[in-house]
């Protein structure tokens, strides 16, 4: 048995690693999906709609039924206390919004952290739909920065908190996943080879 392990060529190790890492990613996606399903079942995660007026607004004001940003860092804050998986909203921007960012806070009164942050992205099929998605986590407050430009006009009236996600949302493959897939697989193969060398006691 050990002898066989010793003789596995590096190409096979690479192949095994690439498959294993892909399976690992898929398993993680499924687990996160399961987390959302069970949280919805036990009632700790609910989908709800919030009007823009329900947020504490900073750097934006209502004008002719739309929202106008008055500085380059407009903020919309609201308390959501509960399990949280992301937001979605339908909006029409006058000019390019730039980065739309959602900060979330897991402790009351916590300062913002670059690590607790989601980029809200435009839907590929429906350009007026914006959404972001994360594994279910307990969150106290959220803060949405809807644009990075002052003087932008946004036509929207509500934001959906915890929109339902499907299995495919959790299994979606982005360029980032592909890059990390390659990086992790190469690393895993290299480490497996190192372990193999440990068995044979010959390091090359």
């Amino acid at each position: 048995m050990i002898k066989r392990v010793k003789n596995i060529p590096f190409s096979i190790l690479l192949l095994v690693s690439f498959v294993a890492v892909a399976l690992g990613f898929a398993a993680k996606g499924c687990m996160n999906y399961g987390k959302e399903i069970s949280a919805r079942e036990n009632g700790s995660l609910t989908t709800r709609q919030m009007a823009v007026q329900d947020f504490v607004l900073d750097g934006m004001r209502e004008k002719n039924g739309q929202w106008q940003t008055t500085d380059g860092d407009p903020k919309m804050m609201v308390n959501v206390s509960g399990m949280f998986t992301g937001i979605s909203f339908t909006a029409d921007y006058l000019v390019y919004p730039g980065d739309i960012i959602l900060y979330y806070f897991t402790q009351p009164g916590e300062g913002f952290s670059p690590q607790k942050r989601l980029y809200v992205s435009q839907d590929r099929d429906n350009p007026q739909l914006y959404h972001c998605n994360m594994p279910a986590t307990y969150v106290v407050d959220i803060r949405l920065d809807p644009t990075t430009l002052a003087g932008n006009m946004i036509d929207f009236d509500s934001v959906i908190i915890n929109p339902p996600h499907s299995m495919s949302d959790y299994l979606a493959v982005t360029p980032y996943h592909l890059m990390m897939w390659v990086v992790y697989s190469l690393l895993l193969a290299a480490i497996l080879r190192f372990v193999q060398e440990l068995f044979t006691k010959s390091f090359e």
Partner: protein
Amino acid sequence: MIIPLFVLAAVLAFAFALYILADIRPSLTPLVSLVTITDIVIVFGMFDMLKTGTTITMFLAVAVAVYAVCKNRENIKEKLYGFLQPGVILFVASCLLMLAYLAYAQPVMHEWDEFSFWGISQLLVKNHDRLYTYFTSSMLGQSIPPALPVLSYIFQWCTTGFTEWVGFFAYDVLMFAGFAAFTAAYERKSANSAIFVYLLAFLTPFFFAISDFLTYMKPVYITAYSDIPMAIVFAGAVAVHFFSEKGNENSVLPVLPVLMFLTFTKDMGLALSCIALFVIFFDMLVARENFVFLKIKGFFGKCFAAFVMLMTIGGTYFGWGYHLGTVLAVNRTDYGGSSGMGIVQMLLTGVKELLIGPKSEKFLFIQDSFFTAFSNAKVSMIGSGRNVVLLILALFVLAFVFGNKKGRKRSAAMLFSTIVGFVGYYIFHLLLYVYILGDEAYNLVSYDRYMYTYYIPWLMMALFCLAMVARDGAKFWAKGAMAGIVCCVLVLFNFYVLPENIFTGVAGNSFGVRRDIAAKTDHIRDAVGEEDVIWLYSGQDDGMRWFTYTFELSDNYIIPNRDFVSAGETEEETKQLLRKEMYDRFTDYGVTHMLMDWTSHEFCVYFDELCDVSTSETGNAAVGYYKVIYGDDSLRFELVKGGTVNFD
């Protein structure tokens, strides 16, 4: 996508020829091949033969490869097998993946200096098929050496029009070629060690380029900034020498084109070239026995080799200076800046004031914050420069502890020479802040960027020593250490990096300003004449929007709006004074058109009456392109084209 692929193939073919004909280690050849091709094209470009020169160089590169293959027809299979070392395979694979990704995502430039120089120079060189010294434009920094714009040009020399992501691809090929060179210690049987080194090299730029992780995407691998490629080429120059087996021409001549490229990258490239030369010379002194260079043996051979390298660097530097002198009639050595000093004068005055005094108030202030920044300013994922230096020292210690006798000698030599280099580099930057930069020097602008230009290659050089030890010394421990370091860096990477704020996230909406301006210029482009001199008004601009317009409308002069200063007793008086001031400015520059990007309250109050269509109707989300009608001491604006721009 076909042309960049073809150029990549030509680079590889030439690399293969270098391996067969000149017996250079396979993993070093992609870097040597790429920089050699670029160097030759630059020289052609300096004689204003950029396009022809590129065609000739490409033809020659392929011809040499064909010759090499024909000459070794019998054993070409073994040669090819010998060429495909882990570094080469990783290089080719990552280039192809990156090419596929960039062609799919099509990222664009969006950072400040991409529009002031590094990106717009690529655009201009491509559109004119000449070096930017041969024509005038709104671009700043005509005297900066042209290696990177030319590199970008080579990868699209026969396409129609300039593609931004091809420029990014050219940079990436250069960097990946550098990473391949870092793995040159290993042959196929040690593929896993090569993977550790390559992964670490790939992740290191992220490890340092962190300052903007707070909000904006940090575009490592999709940027036209020169700092990281220059850092990689610097380390690459050392690697080409360090990993060459024998101490002869083979360990010296391939370094020359890399040093030439490095000196051609940027003014700072000269300093880095000199440091690289110092590090290489020291390694030669310590580690090379039976050294022969062009039949001169031993110590004198080493000195002669160093002399040849110095001549290459000097020749490159003064060659470009001579080119500037003849074509542009400017003096390259005159750095100018806030005190109007030449570089030699700056160094002499600076070192004297630093050691003896008397120091000016600015000197004292900057010296103080510059030295505290070393242990305070966050420049990497593990914090300050001090932490980074400790990490680098730890790598050297590992290499020393696990090394064989020769490995220890080389690690110690490398440690010593790189520390000397760092001290020099640090003090040089102190003097740059004091004498060259103006008021922005007080808050040490771009400190992290200048510093990681040295930290990245320094970390890589420590890794070279460890990599060498993992091959020749206590293999188990050294290899295990490399594996551990890669894992630690990955953990940090996962903590700091969000999928959207590195290059993989560009499919999102990070390019708001850029796309806004692109949409506006596309709207008015057919109304813009070739000879138009355009005055740009943009109410909220900090210079970024002006820079972006100079990029989008690169064939025209774009005159930036500076604040008006006149003020009168009454509003009516102010209005008249401001209009007079505007008239004077416009006639000075010969402005023919006004581009209204973003109007402001001030503009509406003082100037709106001069326009036939109010700027409040063509401001913000709209764009207005006005013709300037000159009267006696007065101006009027007639709308040529304008309207609301939809961005969907």
